[in-house]
């Protein structure tokens, strides 16, 4: 068994195992962490296929943003996951049966699947051959040149999303104490500390 095959089975095995643990784990936080493990291993599989850009995007977007968001939601929301999962074991046999049927169907379909050789030739996009450049380079070459219009439009769409989120949720609450750094920095000893003579047995008024 070559090293590549060994790594493939390692990544694939861990992906499936952690995928199973996502739904089997009792603790929802552990579920999310297993999900992250599954994402990272899937990224490893992408690297092995030579799609390193997709792998990096998977790590950056899914692990870096989406999974962390999940983690926040799980920790912030008071959801009783044990109650949600009640009866899960009871339905397991039926679920397994349906899953098995789908698997057989999929195998039958994919087994007889042939891709029209003409279709593989069809894409007309200006993509350099895989031997000449890595796919990150290939994407980078067209993203800011041929597809700069789409890139800018996507930027505008993200701007709308940002403005929209602010418009719909930001409220100006009165009576909120805000930090004023200039005032803080300008404080001197005389402003902060007051020295008073305390007469014996009389005290001072505060």
């Amino acid at each position: 068994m070559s090293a590549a095959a060994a790594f493939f089975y390692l990544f694939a095995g861990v992906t499936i195992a952690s995928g199973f643990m996502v739904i089997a784990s009792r603790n929802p936080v552990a579920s999310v962490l297993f999900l992250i493990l599954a994402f990272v291993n899937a990224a490893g599989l992408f690297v092995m296929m030579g799609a390193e850009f997709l792998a990096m995007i998977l790590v950056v977007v899914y692990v870096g943003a989406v999974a962390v968001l999940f983690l926040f939601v799980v920790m912030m929301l008071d959801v009783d996951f044990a109650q949600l999962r009640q009866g899960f074991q009871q339905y397991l046999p039926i679920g397994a049966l349906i899953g098995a049927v789908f698997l057989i169907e999929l195998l039958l379909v994919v087994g007889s699947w042939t891709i029209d050789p003409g279709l593989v030739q069809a894409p007309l996009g200006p993509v350099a051959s895989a031997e000449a450049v890595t796919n990150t380079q290939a994407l980078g070459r067209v993203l800011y040149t041929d597809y700069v219009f789409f890139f800018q439009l996507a930027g505008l769409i993200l701007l709308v999303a940002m403005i929209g989120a602010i418009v719909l949720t930001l409220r100006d609450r009165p009576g909120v104490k805000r930090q004023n750094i200039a005032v803080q920095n300008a404080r001197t000893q005389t402003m902060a500390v007051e020295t008073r003579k305390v007469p014996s047995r009389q005290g001072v008024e505060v």
Partner: protein
Amino acid sequence: MNAAQIVLPALGPALPELILSVGVLVLILYGAFRGERSAEGVNVGALILLVVALFAVMSQSGAKVTTLNGSFIVDNFSKVMKALILLGSAATILLSRDYFQRERIDRFEFPILLILCTIGMMVMASANDLIALYLGLELQSLAAYVIAAFHRDNLKSTEAGLKYFVLGALSSGMLLYGASLVYGFTGTVSFPGIVAALDGTAGFGIVLGIVFVAAGVAFKLAAVPFHMWTPDVYEGSPTPVTAFFASAPKMAAMAMTVRLFIGAFPDVTAIWQQIIVFVAIASMALGSFAAIGQRSLKRLMAYSSIGNVGYALVGLAAGSQEGISGVVVYMIIYLAMTLGAFAVLLSLRRGGRMFESVDDLAGLSRTHPVMAFCLAAMMFSLAGIPPLAGFFAKYYVFLAAIKSGLVALAIIGVVTSVVGAFYYLRLVKVMYFDEPVAAYEPMPPGARIVLALASLVVVLLGIVPGPIVGAAGAAAKSLF
């Protein structure tokens, strides 16, 4: 590595969009630094931007030019549709000022989102490939979801925004799936490329793709059977936003539809023609029958817009140059009629409250004779009664349908427009023959301007339809 020479794409054809994009960024910064006090300034700035962009659009030669790697096309069709879109957006800003100030939701983000929405719509009108079309559509839709929920403390407005968002996302998904099928079976996303790849024949995959794309497009047009969101969203949104939804985005959606079907699938007309014929018949029928029982003016206008989209689609179903010319004429006149009607609707205010039901129009002819006369002109025009402009709008699309052999479609259209005339004329009856309750406050200046211009268009174009018919003919010619 020998870096490929990078050639800057020609940006001249996209000048109006660039003006708006750069201008909106400046307005955002101005608004962010000035805070809430900047609403007035941003509104004025947005209006100026729209007018400048309109001049930039009008100064384009109208010759067919593609740029930005072939995904952006400028021709007579895009010129006319962009002018309509910009007019609709500018009218919305005029209509919205007074309303937003009185409802105390006068925030500077509204004109900014409106401009961003306008950029999306203009990209839709100029899209020459599926990616540009989808990105323009998303830019337009996302901004529209936000402004539907702009009155965020109002339950109905937030409901409208949420409903629009969920259903809009679903329809975008359908359109995207159809687009991916078309890409998968042709190997290209550019419209001329698709035409070349299809070569006049369409396999099963392409048919499936066209069906899904048509479903997504029909949702954006609010055409039956993808119209369900329309009455709720129109009713819940703040009224100036409803006026906007009924005007500019309809122009953009229609421009996109025509561009897509005529630009990418001109040789497989038989496939999409039956879809468009069905959608047109269903929209015309539902628009006329469902509006009869409506008491709310905003819901009435929603059903009216569904019906009007149906009539405009009759022209597209014809699939001929005449048909497209009819669609353009229809959209020009529809824009004027809708904005005029909403200008009146936004003026029904008494004692700090807006009135939005049909019965609130009672006796308007005695309390506000000019306003009532203008609204009556709009309603007669919407009902399609000569010599007003609405008659010619319907005349041209039906004529094109008959010339393309779709006689049944034209007959159904005429029958449903007779049914539709009932509820348009009922408004006239309520205004002229019912007893008034009390006078409304004087019309806000913005609404006054919009109503005057709209009435002028509806009356003048009915008498002298030459100029717009000529412009529409040139627009349609550039597509064939």
